[in-house]
């Protein structure tokens, strides 16, 4: 039997120093023996590197920023669908997920499938709701609160010990060692990501993450734990290694079975000095280090694509421990003609 032809649109082509997951998702899908894929990149910025990676991305279209609203996004997707006949869209940014979840039904009506959590699931794991989430599901979560103004911040910090983590609504987190530093990061985070800004207790320990795939019925389809080995000044893993930590897998299983999460997810955790696991964040999509999971034996992007298409996927049982990833940067040479075509026509 031949391979199934499928056209998949993917966002998150920003393979930069704080990378989006688009490119590793595409690599995983392209390695599938079951599909013959045409990859359509969906980009927000003209310089997202994935746009110019013609060996991975067949065609790219610019799409409007989430701030322009879901209707603008839907209209643009209609235009793209008209030309490309999309089967599946895999969104990879936190900030765009709200719109895609809201558009799920409309997209389905025109023949485009997605595999996303419900709006309730999406909101529940929000950074600002994390303490309540921890209480509800019996998970250790650092004490935290959301702040909307400098005076809020001042009041909050009176009852906390330094350092504290100052976190943006969607991305970015900085440790602050004084009120002055906290105020600087508060301004930076609110200007970049809006309100609220989250102030969180600082837990010392090693940063460990789990990539997870849930089927929406409470089943854990895939999970690979990773320890960050090298962290950039933006807090991103530049190198990591798969580890054998059953307690992290148990936590993933517990969260998936209780929340019935549908789609990809990343649990950001800290293993404290006394060996306790603290949940720092739940990212509601596949993380940018997903290709490590592929290399360790769990092709999560392929599994996600199959689930999206309604193909049965058996849960992965094993993965290779001690598999590492090391990220690198690479300069592509791009002709101005390509850039000008993209900026003038919105597609390449």
């Amino acid at each position: 039997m031949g391979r199934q032809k499928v056209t998949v649109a993917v966002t998150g082509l920003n393979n930069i120093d704080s990378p989006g997951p688009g490119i590793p998702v595409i690599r995983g899908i392209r390695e599938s023996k079951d599909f013959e894929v045409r990859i359509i990149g969906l980009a927000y910025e003209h310089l997202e590197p994935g746009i110019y990676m013609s060996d991975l991305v067949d065609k790219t279209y610019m799409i409007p920023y989430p701030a322009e609203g879901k209707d603008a996004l839907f209209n643009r997707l209609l235009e793209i669908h008209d030309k490309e006949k999309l089967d599946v869209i895999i969104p990879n940014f936190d900030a765009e997920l709200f719109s895609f979840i809201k558009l799920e039904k409309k997209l389905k009506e025109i023949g485009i499938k997605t595999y996303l959590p419900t709006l309730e699931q999406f909101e529940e794991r929000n950074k600002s709701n994390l303490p309540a989430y921890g209480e509800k599901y019996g998970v250790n979560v650092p004490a935290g609160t959301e702040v909307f103004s400098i005076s809020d911040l001042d009041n909050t910090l009176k009852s906390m010990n330094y350092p504290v983590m100052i976190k943006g609504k969607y991305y970015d987190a900085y440790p602050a060692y004084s009120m002055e530093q906290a105020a600087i990061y508060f301004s930076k985070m609110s200007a970049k990501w809006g309100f609220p800004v989250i102030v969180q207790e600082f837990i010392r320990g090693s940063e460990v993450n789990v990539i997870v795939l849930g089927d929406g019925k409470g089943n854990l389809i895939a999970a690979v734990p990773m320890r960050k080995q090298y962290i950039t000044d933006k807090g991103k893993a530049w190198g990591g290694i798969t580890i054998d930590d059953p307690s992290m897998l148990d936590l993933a299983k517990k969260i998936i079975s209780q929340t019935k999460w549908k789609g990809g997810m990343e649990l950001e955790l800290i293993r404290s000095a006394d060996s306790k696991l603290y949940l720092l964040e739940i990212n509601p999509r596949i993380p940018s280090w997903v290709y490590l999971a592929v290399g360790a034996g769990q092709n999560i992007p392929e599994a996600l694509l199959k689930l999206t298409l309604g193909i049965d996927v058996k849960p992965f049982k094993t993965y290779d421990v001690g598999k590492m990833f090391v990220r690198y940067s690479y300069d592509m040479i791009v002709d101005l003609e390509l850039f000008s075509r993209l900026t003038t026509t919105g597609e390449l």
Partner: protein
Amino acid sequence: MFRFVHIINKVKSETAIKYRNTIMLIKRNIALSENGFVFNPSTGDSFTLNITGKDVLMLIKEGKNISQITDLMVEKYDVDKITLERYLTDFVNDLSANNLLEE
């Protein structure tokens, strides 16, 4: 400072007593390669041992205690027994602190 040193010495002497005549168990899943590379798959930590460290770890894996390892190594190296035992205790402390030994 005194208190800190005092605590460290206390821990060392406790370790020395604990392992002098007792078999130490390297955690079951710890991987040790021929070239002295140690990997703890539970934490993702890795360490590089020199030849002496690798020899000691191999002897621990064989089930030798500090006293037995001291007797074996004192013949091989130009060092007195007391100093060697102190080095071995330090090394075992490091193994323990890095979660490589069963409690």
